[in-house]
């Protein structure tokens, strides 16, 4: 399988401090990647390196095919009409797909004669997304596309984005710090923490290899071989653990599947733990 996006030991240094250190990921084509991490983890820096706005200090990053980028502060000119934004896009981009852009806006009921500044936040996000899709990218990169949108507009933007994926099979990388936004839409998770890649993998595989165990504290010392405790909390005599690589456990544990939220939280709280494929592996 070909990688749509590959970073090898990618590092980025601003003056004297490192924003990214030794980041390696390999993401297969056609995936919808959720990039999560706390503020300051390096998400925007990582995305800027992917789209070529930043040059790696160490290592490399490459994408297969045309890349389009939707920056966090939607790159629109408030004084321009929607039609003028399209005209600008057509001038700047050789492979521009004006027809589908117009059809998309018509479908959304966004009047092309209106000034961008007069549109709602949700409509502005849709226009920005339409401009990015009209470039017919193989890899679409979006920095916090849902930030500052109300729940209805978030749903509508995600619908547009997922429809785009269904139509073109492109790879999408989107960042968010709201994990619940990603549960239905992303199938690949990348967790960045303190400038390092902590988790990268197929979400279904990741969820299958992590379990949440609750039980008496004294059991915590006798987990089966190969078990890795990613996160643990204790209340009185009760311990709750998020463990990796365990299938059969002592029946005194109460076992449940980890949710995406559980998984992300546990890793973010334990920055020294990691869930990464073997260096040569691309994953499922």
């Amino acid at each position, binding site marked *: 399988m070909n990688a749509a996006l590959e970073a090898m030991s990618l590092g980025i240094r601003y003056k004297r401090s490192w924003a990214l250190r030794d980041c390696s990921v390999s993401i297969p084509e056609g995936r919808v990647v959720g990039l999560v991490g706390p503020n300051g983890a390096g998400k925007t820096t990582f995305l800027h390196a992917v789209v070529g706005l930043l040059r790696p200090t160490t290592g490399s990053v490459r994408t297969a095919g045309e890349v389009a980028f939707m920056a966090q502060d939607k790159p629109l000119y408030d004084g321009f009409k929607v039609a003028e934004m399209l005209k600008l896009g057509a001038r700047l981009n050789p492979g521009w797909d004006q027809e589908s852009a117009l059809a998309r806006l018509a479908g959304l009921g966004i009047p092309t004669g209106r000034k961008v500044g007069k549109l709602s936040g949700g409509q502005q996000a849709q226009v920005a997304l339409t401009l990015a899709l009209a470039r017919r990218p193989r890899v679409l990169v979006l920095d916090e596309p849902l930030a500052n949108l109300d729940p209805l507009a978030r749903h509508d933007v995600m619908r547009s984005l*997922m*429809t785009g994926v*269904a*139509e073109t099979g492109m790879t999408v990388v989107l960042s968010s710090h709201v994990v619940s936004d990603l549960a*239905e*839409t992303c*199938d690949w998770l990348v967790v960045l923490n303190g400038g390092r890649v902590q988790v990268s993998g197929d979400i279904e595989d990741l969820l299958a290899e992590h379990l949440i165990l609750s039980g008496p504290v004294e059991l915590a010392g006798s987990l089966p071989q190969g078990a890795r405790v990613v996160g643990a909390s204790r209340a009185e005599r009760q311990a709750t653990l998020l463990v990796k690589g365990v299938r059969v456990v002592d029946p005194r544990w109460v076992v449940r599947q980890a949710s995406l939220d559980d998984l992300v939280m546990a890793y973010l709280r334990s920055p020294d733990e990691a869930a990464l494929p073997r260096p040569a592996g691309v994953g499922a």
Partner: protein
Amino acid sequence: MSTYLQLVHQVKQALRLGLLKPGDKLPTAREVVDRLAINPNTVLKAYRELEREGLVMGRPGMGTFVQRSIGGATLADQTRLRRGLTAWVQQGREAGLDQEDLEALFTLVLGDTFREEIA
């Protein structure tokens, strides 16, 4: 339940109730995604699972079509059974049972009946 299993479940439910019949076309991934804002790979995976079970068949470039129904009942039988069940629910409500009471009772009887068959 994962979204993928929910989709599988919904199609099976529609097959059981006769809402989908052999030859019917399932909505395309794009159509499903446009309604639900979910990952298209999830839809394709659900369709693959239904295909593996022999319930639907994908025809390249044309779509995914229902191969066979599930559940033994004909439409006429279903209508009759549904009417009987509606009457039973009505009686239950008259006796003061609420929705949860009725569900519990139904599940209990269902379980008992099938256990007797196995025994």
